[in-house]
């Protein structure tokens, strides 16, 4: 990272170990937990790293998630162009109206109903891997298709359009396409979601899109164009994140063989292990971004209205005051209060879905292929340091 002329550290910072947050951010956590950083465009912002500060910050009503507000910390060039009023960038009370419309389908009780579908689609992918034979790239053949197919179930994409949908989702969001191909896929998905909503109006099913159409579009409470953006957001937010957790989590487990053996022998421990992997890896490694709408005090530091704030979940999830020995993977620790899904009104709506996907994916993968191992030396694995969601580009495995 080049040192900006102001002498402030740049953000994002560079990792040394692929499994740990950047040393500089952990140093700030210890020495200057609320500090100033500069972004790629010279903009300055506050970086908040302690667990308690991040948690209270994200429930503070005097912070806005609206990218259009002056002072909002645009941590990448891509975000600088992203000015749409999506749900994750709306503030209360507007945000809460849409969030409550979506919430019922993401209740733990409802999501548990998806588990048999997830088990089936995971088993089908494992069958295909077995038929293909080792080695396979776990990212392309397992990690990406799982959230794409689960999103198909949630949105009610019919069986004969699933391949199209999964293909577009990958081209749009996996970061493996050219910018033009990604933009083309995004346009195709946008058009398709519009068509799908029309189809649901004519023949509603039991999926989320159908429920939104019959309960809210038909009654005039929800504009159809807004529903398209909500559907897109569900796809965007649930796809890359879950896929990267599946692949990077698998790699992490392979590097902790004793704990992995324990999990294979005691599958009831998978839910706890999933929470620990979410904490340890915190693949949402660019933090949550807000702008203060009033003067606030965070960790004893005054932050003025109009100043940008980055709540660093990756550092917070390594705060030793909350997680003793934070840099150790320990499937036995209670990590349920980690901040990998964020916190506050924008906390990931799909957290329960992600938990089911991860629990099923890891457990079924290692049950089917107990001898799963890397098919390349560890130093050949490419980590996605530059992506907004952290992970591995490919994960060649054999069994």
């Amino acid at each position, binding site marked *: 990272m080049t040192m900006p002329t102001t002498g402030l550290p740049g953000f994002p910072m560079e990792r040394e170990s692929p499994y740990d947050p950047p040393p500089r951010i952990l140093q700030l956590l210890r020495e200057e937990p609320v500090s100033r950083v500069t972004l790629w465009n010279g903009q300055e912002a506050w970086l908040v790293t302690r667990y308690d500060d991040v948690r209270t910050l994200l429930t503070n009503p005097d912070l806005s998630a609206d990218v259009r507000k002056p002072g909002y910390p645009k941590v990448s060039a891509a975000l600088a162009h992203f000015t749409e009023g999506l749900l994750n960038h709306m503030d209360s009370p507007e945000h*809460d109206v849409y969030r*409550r419309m979506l*919430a*019922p389908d993401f209740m*733990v009780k409802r999501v548990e109903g998806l588990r048999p579908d997830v088990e089936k689609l995971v088993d089908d992918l494992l069958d295909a891997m077995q038929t293909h034979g080792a080695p396979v790239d776990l990212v392309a053949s397992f990690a990406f298709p799982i959230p794409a197919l689960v999103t198909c179930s949630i949105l009610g994409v019919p069986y004969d359009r699933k391949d199209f949908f999964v293909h577009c989702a990958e081209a749009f969001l996996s970061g493996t396409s050219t910018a033009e191909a990604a933009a083309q896929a995004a346009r195709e998905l946008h058009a398709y979601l519009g068509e799908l909503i029309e189809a649901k109006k004519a023949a509603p099913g039991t999926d989320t899109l159908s429920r939104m159409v019959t309960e809210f579009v038909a009654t005039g409470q929800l504009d159809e164009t807004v529903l398209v953006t909500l559907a897109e957001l569900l796809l965007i937010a649930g796809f890359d994140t879950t896929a990267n957790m599946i692949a990077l989590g698998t790699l992490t487990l392979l590097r902790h063989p004793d704990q992995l053996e324990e999990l294979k022998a005691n599958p009831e421990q998978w839910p706890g292990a999933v929470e620990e992997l979410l904490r340890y890896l915190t693949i949402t490694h660019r933090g949550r971004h807000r702008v203060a709408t009033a003067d606030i005090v965070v960790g004893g530091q005054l932050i003025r209205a109009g100043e940008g704030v980055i709540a660093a979940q990756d550092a917070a999830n390594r705060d030793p005051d909350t997680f003793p020995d934070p840099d150790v993977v320990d499937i036995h620790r209670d990590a*349920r*209060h980690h901040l990998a899904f964020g916190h506050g009104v924008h906390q990931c709506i799909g957290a329960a879905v992600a938990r089911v996907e991860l629990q099923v994916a890891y457990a079924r993968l290692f049950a089917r292929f107990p001898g799963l191992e890397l098919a390349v030396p560890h130093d050949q694995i490419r980590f996605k340091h530059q992506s907004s969601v952290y992970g591995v580009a490919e994960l060649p495995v054999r069994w």
Partner: protein
Amino acid sequence: MHVRVDRDRCLGSGNCLAWASEVFDQSDEDFLVVVLDETPPEERWAAVEQAARFCPAQAIHVERTS
């Protein structure tokens, strides 16, 4: 301990059930929080306090009465 919820703030994320499913539930009608036990026994106090602390909408209020 007395447990009170603010249903105007609740967004139905259901985190409270993960901490204390004996004390909190989500309504089958509007999917928002309902309190099953407003004065939970002492062995559940710690879990209820976690539920309040980690409620993303800050919709749970707990008062300790000793």
